[in-house]
């Protein structure tokens, strides 16, 4: 089944039919998920749905599946690709024939992916990314692994052959630089931001509840819960206990959710070091393999928090130019040791050093943080009053120390460093984040000042690259202007490309 000559139009592996079929079926059922659930529920209750007997329903479903299968076969038969001298050709479409031609030189990224189904039947999908909008991405969904790697090489090699011919030779040297252990994954999962997980769960539950309001009402859950709670309602202690129970349950759920999520997306995370590029492999159900090219990197963000620092866990996200939103999330390497982070930075950013004098924002920043907290506290008090009445002033006993800590850490962690080639900005309150960007990749620089700041001569500097804007918050106006002039001078005087 292996294809080695790409000059002739070829189809993907015949297993592609299964992949296309599986994928389309999944999409179909996902689309009508709610309908199917409703169908199932009413079948359970009445044994019929819209006066159709179960046999007819099964027949309908089978019919749909057959149509989907037919489409998959046709789609497979009409999907052909080949490589000519400088271009990649692809023709697709059952009724509307599409013929896509991509010049090799315009290909930005080629990566290999493998979802659960593909893992089962041992094929991979190859994605070809070009600069431009999301739709310009091409996916060949079923190839043998060896074919895929060969094709990838073919697409890339000639692409770079003109630039330097020996890079292909050197590229062969691969070393696995980092491999995550299950223990570290577990720690990473435990130390994640559980509020986020909780929000996801909560919105999911609310969403479901909203969809199935009527059914749930039928089940009379409310009455049952109220019945249970009424037993404890006699004592204040009882209420306290139920609340505590709910809180603990929520925390536990969020924790488990975080851990599972971390495991699924980062299972077997591996960082492979090539001569010039870095490759990331990860995923349990969706195996993906991505490569990072230093020239395309725009920002590097390193994140950790108190707890993670204790375990020696650092998260590094790399923002590349011209990748779509779906891919952006995947350029994250978790559970790195401090020295591993440094090693990767050395590799990706030449000449980077963090041994520089760190400058702090002006004290005005504290006021802004304080103001933030004041507004939050006022809103929190307002809500508490509306819900629980006027005797909840005690929440301020918790809120005020939290606010003070917020201001303290927010200010303590903020700094910036600038040298000839890099800007480093530190920040975060619970998290500790470090943002690094190369000066020659700057797209625009902006000074921002409100009327109130004008009197105190405070300004923020916002630096935009092709993938992200970062802010040096609230520094002295003269300082900001110098940075502004310096950065622009650097960008404009060197004739370096940003990509």
């Amino acid at each position, binding site marked *: 089944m292996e294809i080695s000559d790409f000059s002739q139009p070829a189809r993907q592996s015949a297993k592609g039919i299964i992949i296309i079929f599986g994928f389309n079926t999944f999409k179909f059922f996902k689309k009508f998920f709610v309908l199917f659930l409703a169908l199932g529920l009413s079948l359970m209750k009445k044994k019929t749905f819209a006066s159709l007997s179960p046999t007819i329903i099964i027949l309908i479903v089978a019919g749909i599946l057959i149509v989907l299968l037919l489409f998959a076969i046709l789609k497979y038969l009409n999907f052909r690709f080949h490589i000519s001298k400088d271009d990649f050709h692809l023709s697709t479409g059952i009724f509307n024939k599409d013929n896509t031609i991509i010049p090799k030189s315009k290909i930005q990224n080629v990566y290999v992916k493998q979802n659960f189904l593909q893992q089962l039947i041992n094929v991979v999908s190859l994605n070809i990314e070009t600069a431009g909008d999301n739709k310009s991405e091409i996916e060949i969904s079923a190839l043998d692994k060896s074919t895929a790697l060969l094709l990838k090489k073919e697409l890339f090699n000639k692409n770079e052959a003109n630039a330097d011919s020996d890079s292909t030779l050197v590229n062969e040297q691969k070393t696995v630089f980092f491999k995550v252990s299950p223990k570290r994954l577990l720690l990473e999962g435990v130390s994640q931001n559980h509020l986020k997980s909780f929000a996801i769960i909560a919105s999911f539950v609310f969403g479901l509840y909203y969809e199935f309001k009527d059914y749930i009402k039928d089940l009379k859950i409310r009455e049952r819960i109220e019945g249970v709670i009424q037993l404890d309602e006699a004592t204040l202690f009882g209420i306290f206990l139920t609340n505590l129970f709910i809180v603990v349950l929520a925390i536990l759920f969020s924790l488990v959710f975080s851990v599972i999520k971390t495991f699924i997306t980062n299972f077997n995370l591996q960082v492979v070091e090539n001569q010039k590029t870095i490759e990331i492999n990860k995923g349990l159900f969706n195996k993906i393999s991505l490569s990072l090219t230093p020239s395309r990197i725009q920002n590097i963000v390193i994140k950790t928090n108190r707890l993670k620092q204790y375990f020696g866990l650092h998260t590094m996200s790399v923002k590349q*130019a*011209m990748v779509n939103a779906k891919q952006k999330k995947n350029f994250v390497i978790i559970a790195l040791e401090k020295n591993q982070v440094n090693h990767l930075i050395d590799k990706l950013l030449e*000449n980077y*050093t963090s*041994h*520089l*004098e760190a400058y702090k924002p002006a004290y005005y920043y504290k006021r802004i943080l304080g103001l933030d907290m004041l507004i939050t506290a006022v809103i929190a008090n307002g809500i508490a009053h509306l819900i629980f009445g006027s005797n909840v002033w005690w929440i301020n006993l918790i809120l005020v120390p939290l606010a003070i800590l917020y201001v303290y850490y927010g200010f303590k962690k903020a700094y910036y*460093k*600038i*040298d*000839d*080639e890099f800007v480093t900005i530190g920040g975060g309150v619970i998290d500790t984040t470090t943002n690094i960007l190369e000066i020659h990749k*700057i*797209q*625009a*620089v*902006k*000074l*921002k*000042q*409100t*009327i109130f700041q*004008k009197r105190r001569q405070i300004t923020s500097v*916002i630096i*935009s*690259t*092709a*993938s*992200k*804007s970062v802010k040096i918050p609230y520094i002295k106006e003269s300082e900001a*202007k*110098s*940075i*502004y*002039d*310096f950065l*622009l*001078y650097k*960008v*404009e005087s060197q*004739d370096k490309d*940003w*990509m």
Partner: protein
Amino acid sequence: MSFTNSQIFNDALPKLEDVKLKPISKRYLKIIILNKLAMCAAFLGVLIVGKLFIEREAFQDNFWFIFSIVMVFCLINFVIAILAFKKRKYAIRDHDVIYASGLIVNSITTVPISRIQHIEESRSWLARQFNLAALNLYTAGESGSDLSIKGLPHEEAKQINDYISVRINGNQ
């Protein structure tokens, strides 16, 4: 590669303060006024239509209260927009384009010409009546780094457009 303070505060660097920012065309103020008036009229119009058709008592009783709030809001908005007009300034330097705007939140953005992907001159119907044009500069960055200079005299916009277009293509 150690970095010293003096490098940043080097006097020899071209300074932002030395740039003479040029105000945009005065005729654009008329466009702003017209736009704001239209907006206020739309808001008040909706309210008045509401008074005629909504019969809920809570709304009818408080109509003048709501009306005056909207009125005050419009007035403040109007005054700020007019005052902010003076802050809209721009400059084209050898290597970059600078645009400043905003009264309450003042911002000065600079885009190096070498980072501009493409440039576009756009003229709305209203702008054509006043012989004005807007210049949109697009960079590869997030939307935050794109620049739009509104209210340039048409002739000047054309000149800048030509100049920058040549520069962008020349660099390639």
